């Protein structure tokens, strides 16, 4: 017999608080797919709408700050995927979706969103060619952001294995489609930058429908590519598919295989480059040594180099000649001198003053000086007269 008084009675606020706690902790983040109805952009800037499908509906609100980032204008009838948390609003006793992100699903809406985002990012300068980083010429560590199960990785792998197996490929596995894929890709790009161990990044996936490729048209991916310090090559779908990622990327590859071809040179091409460098180097040094040898040979046989030798020879010859002529001259001079000697002797002998004195001449000296003239002596001078056999003093009388 349970009476109402034995039961725990809750106030409206209490039950609402418990529902709120239960709901909000159960659905902190959900993705909900549905069609928009009752879309209303309030003058406050907040966006109110209802998401519905055939069997149910949920009301939603997107706050003004988030509305500003919407790549499109949500309208009634659009199919969308909404991301957010379930919240309870106690004053009204209802629950709603606090929507942080809205993403169009229908092809028309997607096209529209694509064009809007493209225009916005273009105006912001995210596609500026000046911002694009050069792709390294010879990367050795290549980061690949894609699904590990997708065709893109297999394509990239086989092209790289064939072209240049010297490489290291570091894969960062992500989901490339579905809800949250864009965020995952963006985070992977940021992580690769934090990690830093790769020279270049290939971001992409294999072919698919426009919706399948949608993650690469999202702003989060575009901004992560723009902010990447590592050069990014986009490789999304097929040749005809253009994504926002392609416009922001430093290089757009039409397909993942093409990305692999663009990023590395063929081994044979590299070997050619290497061979050419080697050959040029070898040739250059050989030419140089050859040139130097020629120069030395030219020098050795040149006139000026040989001049000293000639001069030496000439000198040696001249010395010989001189020696010979000197010897000749000496003998000649000697003979000549010897021949003359007798005559000179005779002349010297005949010039001896003693012999002259013997013949009766005398020498008058005054103070040791020979008087050669009568005018040199005057009265009273004393002089010495030298005869051949002696000297006598004398005085001039008159």
């Amino acid at each position, binding site marked *: 017999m349970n009476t109402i008084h034995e039961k725990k009675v809750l106030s409206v606020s209490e039950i609402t608080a418990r529902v709120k706690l239960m709901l909000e902790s159960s659905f902190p983040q959900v993705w909900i797919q549905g069609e928009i109805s009752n879309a209303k952009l309030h003058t406050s800037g907040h966006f109110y709408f209802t998401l519905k499908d055939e069997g149910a509906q949920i009301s939603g609100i997107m706050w003004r700050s988030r509305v500003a980032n919407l790549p499109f204008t949500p309208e009634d009838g659009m199919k969308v995927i909404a991301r957010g948390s379930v919240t309870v609003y106690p004053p009204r006793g209802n629950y709603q979706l606090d929507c942080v992100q809205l993403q169009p699903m229908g092809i028309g809406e997607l096209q529209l969103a694509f064009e809007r985002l493209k225009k916005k990012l273009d105006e912001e300068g995210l596609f500026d060619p000046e911002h694009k980083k050069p792709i390294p010429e010879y990367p050795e*560590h290549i980061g690949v952001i894609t699904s590990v199960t997708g065709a893109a990785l297999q394509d990239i792998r086989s092209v790289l294995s064939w072209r240049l197996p010297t490489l290291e490929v570091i894969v960062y596995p992500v989901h490339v489609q579905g809800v949250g894929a864009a965020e995952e890709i963006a985070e992977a790009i940021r*992580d690769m930058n934090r990690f830093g161990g790769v020279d270049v990044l290939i971001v992409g996936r294999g072919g698919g429908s426009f919706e399948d490729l949608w993650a690469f048209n999202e702003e989060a991916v575009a901004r992560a590519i723009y902010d990447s310090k590592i050069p990014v090559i986009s490789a999304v779908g097929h040749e005809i598919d253009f994504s926002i990622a392609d416009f922001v990327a430093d290089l757009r590859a039409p397909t993942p295989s093409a990305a692999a071809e663009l990023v590395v040179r063929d081994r044979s091409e590299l070997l050619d480059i290497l061979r050419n460098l080697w050959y*040029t180097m070898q040739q250059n040094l050989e030419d140089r040594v050859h040139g130097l040898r020629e120069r030395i040979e030219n020098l050795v046989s040149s006139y000026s180099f040989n001049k000293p030798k000639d001069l030496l020879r000439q000198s040696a010859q001249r010395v010989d000649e001189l020696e010979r002529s000197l010897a000749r001259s000496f003998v000649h001079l000697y003979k000549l001198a010897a021949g003359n000697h007798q005559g000179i002797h005779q002349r010297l002998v005949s010039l001896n003053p003693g012999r002259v004195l013997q013949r009766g001449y005398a020498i008058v000296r005054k103070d040791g000086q020979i008087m050669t003239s009568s005018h040199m002596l005057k009265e009273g001078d004393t002089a010495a007269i030298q005869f051949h056999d002696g000297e006598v003093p004398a005085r001039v009388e008159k």
Partner: protein
Amino acid sequence: MSKKSGKSGKSSENGQSFEASLKRLEQIVESLESGEVPLDKAVELYEEGVQLSKFCGEKLRDTELRLKKLSKDAEGNFEVSDLES
């Protein structure tokens, strides 16, 4: 084989990267071609060039692509492991 977070794998084990070696080799050839290097320096450069081109040639003879996977643990540390295929 695993590497922790931070810069790793930027250059090969002996600290010499293919790109850096090839660039240096190109530089050497360029300065040899300029003819402005004195002979003894040229011979020195030539010897360095021979080493570099040998190193690059050996690198090119590698035959197996190294396929790795980057993952991040709860503390945000990175780990590079072989990608099972």
